[in-house]
């Protein structure tokens, strides 16, 4: 009977005589079915809650370049007030942004260093989560334009009068109000995957439209193809690490961007391919362990980074 008790309750009972412990354990087990009657009504739907937080879904203080802060200030004072309230919570971060040099006001450049992940809101209300080792320039004119190197997840504010266009390697992504992931890392074909809404991806005269559950991989010298997504696009935002039949060199580069760990691979292994599906990978160790064990590799950590060898 005692083995059905939680550990800390077993500890709490440890000083009592054994028969008493057994009796109380029996009461504990009997009580399982005697939970108080639940409230005769349900919690409010999650949409009610999201409606209450969305107007204040503001960038974190350290997530904003001064140029766009200035524009925000001009655009809406109410938002600025809320922004200052958030900023006050993060006093350290406030110092960082006021100390930054100012950027040209037409196109703001956002950078997430390797190992970082940054979330911010563009002046049009769209949200961007920028992955580690990525750079993005945004100019919010009559056409909202973004040039992306690296990877980012976009949740674009609907505005039929102002198209939202992303340039990523050799493809152009035109957004039709929506949430999707764009991956444009060096050495790999650009990838676009949609979570909500619809986007059009084009390269030269080639053009495809994607709906939720679809992605395109813009391989060199082949027409754009629409294929089902293997994992939810942008799952990296919540700590997942996925690699589909990727070379060790590509996985090493991804670990570098994601965690800021420089990974070198023994040249003879660079082209070995592997598939990883880790729904939660909070540190580089999780990824390297999942790789090294099954592939029979040794992982050596040095001051410069990590080396993968046979």
């Amino acid at each position: 009977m005692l083995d059905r008790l939680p550990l800390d309750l077993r500890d709490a009972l440890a000083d009592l005589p054994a028969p008493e412990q057994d009796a109380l354990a029996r009461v504990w087990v009997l009580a399982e079915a005697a939970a108080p009657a639940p409230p005769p009504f349900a919690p409010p739907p999650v949409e009610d809650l999201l409606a209450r937080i969305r107007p204040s879904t503001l960038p974190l203080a350290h997530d904003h370049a001064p140029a766009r802060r200035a524009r925000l200030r001009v655009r809406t004072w109410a938002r600025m007030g809320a922004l200052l309230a958030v900023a006050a919570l993060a006093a350290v971060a406030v110092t960082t942004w006021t100390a930054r040099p100012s950027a040209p006001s037409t196109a703001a450049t956002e950078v997430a260093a390797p190992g970082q992940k940054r979330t911010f809101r563009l002046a049009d209300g769209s949200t961007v989560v920028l992955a580690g080792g990525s750079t993005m320039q945004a100019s919010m004119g009559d056409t909202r334009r973004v040039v992306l190197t690296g990877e980012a997840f976009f949740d674009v504010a609907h505005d039929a009068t102002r198209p939202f266009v992303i340039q990523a390697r050799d493809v152009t992504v035109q957004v039709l109000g929506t949430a999707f992931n764009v991956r444009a890392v060096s050495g790999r074909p650009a990838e676009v995957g949609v979570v909500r809404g619809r986007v059009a991806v084009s390269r030269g005269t080639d053009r495809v439209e994607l709906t939720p559950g679809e992605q395109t991989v813009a391989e060199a010298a082949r027409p754009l193809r629409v294929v089902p997504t293997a994992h939810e696009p942008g799952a990296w935002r919540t700590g997942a690490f996925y690699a589909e039949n990727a070379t060790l060199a590509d996985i090493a580069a991804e670990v570098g961007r994601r965690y800021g760990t420089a990974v070198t691979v023994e040249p003879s292994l660079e082209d070995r391919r592997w598939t990883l599906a880790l729904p939660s990978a909070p540190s580089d160790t999780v990824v390297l362990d999942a790789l090294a064990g099954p592939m029979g590799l040794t992982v050596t950590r040095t001051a410069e980074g990590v080396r993968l060898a046979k």
Partner: protein
Amino acid sequence: MHALSVDDFRQWSLDLQASDDRGFAALYTATSPALHRYIHSITRDAEATNDVLQELYVKLWNVRTTIDPDRSLKALLFQMARNFALNHERAKRRRASDPLDDHAEPADSALPADALLDTNQVEDRLRAWIDELPPRRREAFCLSRFEGLSHDEIAKAMDLAPKTVNNHIVLALQTLRTRLAEFDPSFRLDA
């Protein structure tokens, strides 16, 4: 909340820090039923329970950048639920003591008395005896037994010493055992 792991809560803490409202929605979906029960056990009032529940999650969102993923988000949620519900009760009592306010209602009791008369089901009896425990003892016991909180998490949520939590839970079990033995001496509790 028995089924949710430490890793789930850790991930939600990170989502909150990253202002990820989808992670926040997932957190709400997974945790709101338990907090709803807990708040209702304090307020015993439908409207107040839903109000307090929403206030709590809005507040959590507003302080999301200060969430420490290395500390128990689960304990924090229950702690906030308790404080918000008690604040609400205090405000209600202040209104109730105001002679100009004539429609302050007493909290309705958990079970109508006559719901128990025609049954000798052990479960119903136990439910009633749990309800009769001193309020803080009942609270600690229910969080442990029905919401799966550890003694440390309960201590944090209720602002008690861990030792006091142990005592409440052991005393609750002893009370229930005595009631069971009175109700039906054939319960061989010492077997």
